[in-house]
């Protein structure tokens, strides 16, 4: 399967993230790069500008900007040409999908199909063959895996934002080692410890962010939340919010509820959970007997 990677306004983070895919060498045998921003490819960028044939999957990363010029040609021209030919289009990373951080830099910056949560009409004609792989950066397993599934002709169930459910039906909260602190509503959390949940004070968005960070661990080993960093919701259309390190609250209750949880039900549940007051959670894990 032949891949062509086009970067708009990008930090190259998605490119480097894919290089960390543990099975990269094995994986790449099934694919050929017509163009990749870093790795050896069949064509130069100038040849890509002039037009090359054979693109099966177009990978787009980075934020779009009106009148963005790559070298000699507008980015939009390249995007349209290769989107016409490609069987599939992957918007990789939050920038290409929703606009991401760099969309905050200037008016008129967007993702391919979305501007934040709003659907754009411009590229409606290839919406049906597009797949969204948000993340800042994308998880390498989500990118490599989606490409492998496409190559195998496997059907991929997608959600309404066209994210593959295999990777985005989970929340970042799923598999977090700090889950028990969340469940029993223990709202104390200090940085630099193994204990505590960051949902209550430190802005963690893991309970309503779609992503596999705690299911498929980063670099095969760890995740932000396991490490004690709040999930910043980097796969979501509204990334990055303001005031990322604190939890917005109303009358002492977090404003945003876990995915699908009604506020009233949460309050009831929180009251019951808190009433357990399980002693082991109030001691350091390493001292627990």
């Amino acid at each position, binding site marked *: 399967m032949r891949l062509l990677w086009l970067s708009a*306004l990008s930090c190259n983070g998605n490119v480097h993230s894919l*290089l960390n895919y543990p099975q990269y060498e094995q994986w790449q045998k099934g694919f050929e790069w017509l163009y990749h921003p*870093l790795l050896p490819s069949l064509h130069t960028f100038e040849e890509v500008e002039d037009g090359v044939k054979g693109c099966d999957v177009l990978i787009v990363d980075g934020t779009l900007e009106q009148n963005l010029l*790559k070298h000699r040609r507008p980015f939009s021209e390249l995007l349209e040409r290769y989107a016409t030919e490609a069987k599939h289009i992957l918007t990789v990373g939050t920038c290409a999908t929703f606009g991401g951080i760099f969309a905050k830099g200037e008016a008129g910056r967007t993702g391919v199909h979305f501007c934040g949560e709003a659907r754009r009409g411009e590229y409606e004609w290839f919406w049906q063959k597009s797949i969204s792989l948000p993340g800042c950066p994308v998880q390498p397993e989500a990118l490599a895996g989606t490409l492998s599934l496409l190559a195998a002709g496997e059907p991929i169930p997608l959600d309404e934002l066209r994210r593959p459910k295999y990777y985005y039906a989970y929340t970042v909260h799923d598999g977090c080692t700090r889950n028990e602190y969340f469940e029993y509503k223990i709202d104390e959390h200090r940085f630099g*410890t193994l204990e505590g949940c960051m949902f209550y004070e430190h802005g963690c968005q893991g309970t309503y962010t779609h992503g596999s960070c705690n299911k498929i661990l980063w*670099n095969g080993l760890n995740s932000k939340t396991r490490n004690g960093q709040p999930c910043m919701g980097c796969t979501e259309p509204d990334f990055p919010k303001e*005031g990322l*390190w604190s939890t917005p609250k109303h009358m002492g209750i977090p404003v945003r509820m876990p995915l699908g949880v009604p506020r009233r039900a949460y309050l009831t549940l929180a009251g019951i959970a808190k009433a357990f007051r399980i002693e082991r959670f109030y001691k350091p894990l*390493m001292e627990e007997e």
Partner: protein
Amino acid sequence: MARTRLELIEKIEGEAEVLYEYEGERISFAQIRFLNSRHIEKILQGREPLDALVINPRVCGICGHAHLIATVRALEDCFERVPLSQKAEAVREMTLSLELIQNHFKWFYLTVLPLLGLEAPIQRALEPSRLAGEMIALMAGQYPHNSYAIPGGITGEITPVDLLEFRARLERLKLLFRQSLIDVDLEAFVRCERIEEMLSKEGDLPRAMRHILKRGWERVGQSLDHFIVFGGGGLFTEGKSIGTRLQESINLRYLKEEALEGNAAKRVSYRGRYYETGPLARAMVLKTPLIREAHRRYKDSLFSRILARICEVPRLLRYLETLCDGLDLSEASYTDPGPFPASAQGTGIVEAARGSLIHRVTIEEGRISRYQIVTPTQWNLGNGTRENPCPAQKALMGLQRNDPAELVFKAFDVCSVCTTK
């Protein structure tokens, strides 16, 4: 009328353009252009200071960690005093060093070897950089793009189990260094001062350097011979070196940044002069024996530049070992520095793979009112005039038709994303 040619430089971090001017077959002048700006500095304005810890790693996909550490140091500098444990400091140094290692491997195998026409199996770049990424992830949650360093320390707690996993990978990295780059004892290589000794070993580094000598390129790409290093304290020492004349004290007061028309990268100077920053500059300031010898013979050429970068790897590996050995896990990972000052200014400096990276933040009424980032690329790839060129320009000037201009240019480890501010 001089002939000109516009060339696209790709497969760097992003793309750049160079407009070459020729006199006959000789490059008489070169202008370097970075076309796009992502406006990170503007995006930070009006935000809460801690948001910078999340936004700034996204300045660069390969040096994001350096941006995180520069950010946290700038933010900590805003406090009167931040109680930082030695453990937190050491762990930050560890992850920062690992980012340099992955960068050096990727640059050597993905950029340099192909330009020399030498076989460059990508797994020799990918396996060590993946390992370095895993080691960062053990300490910092994930790589790239984490926000684990916060004012007062680090977000995670390191257990002896993490350290075991870390050390196992460090051993593997050391083995890979010997297996692929140069088969020599790490300790001996750091002290080595004879080019011939390096050339006589097995490995891709001596192979590449022998190839450069065979092609007669060892003196190609000489530049200003002015070096600067702002980030001292860890493995590196701050200072500047004009040729081999070393001056240890430098002051950020003399740094000047100017915007350039039609270019997304501002240029920077120190006391009105342009300087090269990065591995060669660090080696010149540290007086690394082998690099001093390369410099004595071939000046600040692409030979010295390539050798200097790879010579950092064993130093970094040894540094990692020392940091591991000295780590006292019973110390606190984090000590609350208290509320963020409502008004303050701070500066954070790190040595990133490509050179000195400087972040400066101004806080007013609890919000970021100004954020300024000076990247290594601005030093190395700035645009001066014909009479007073910046380092990469100078290195390109005078090159003849058969000289490897792209290699000369990329020996500076060109990055376009880190200029797009």
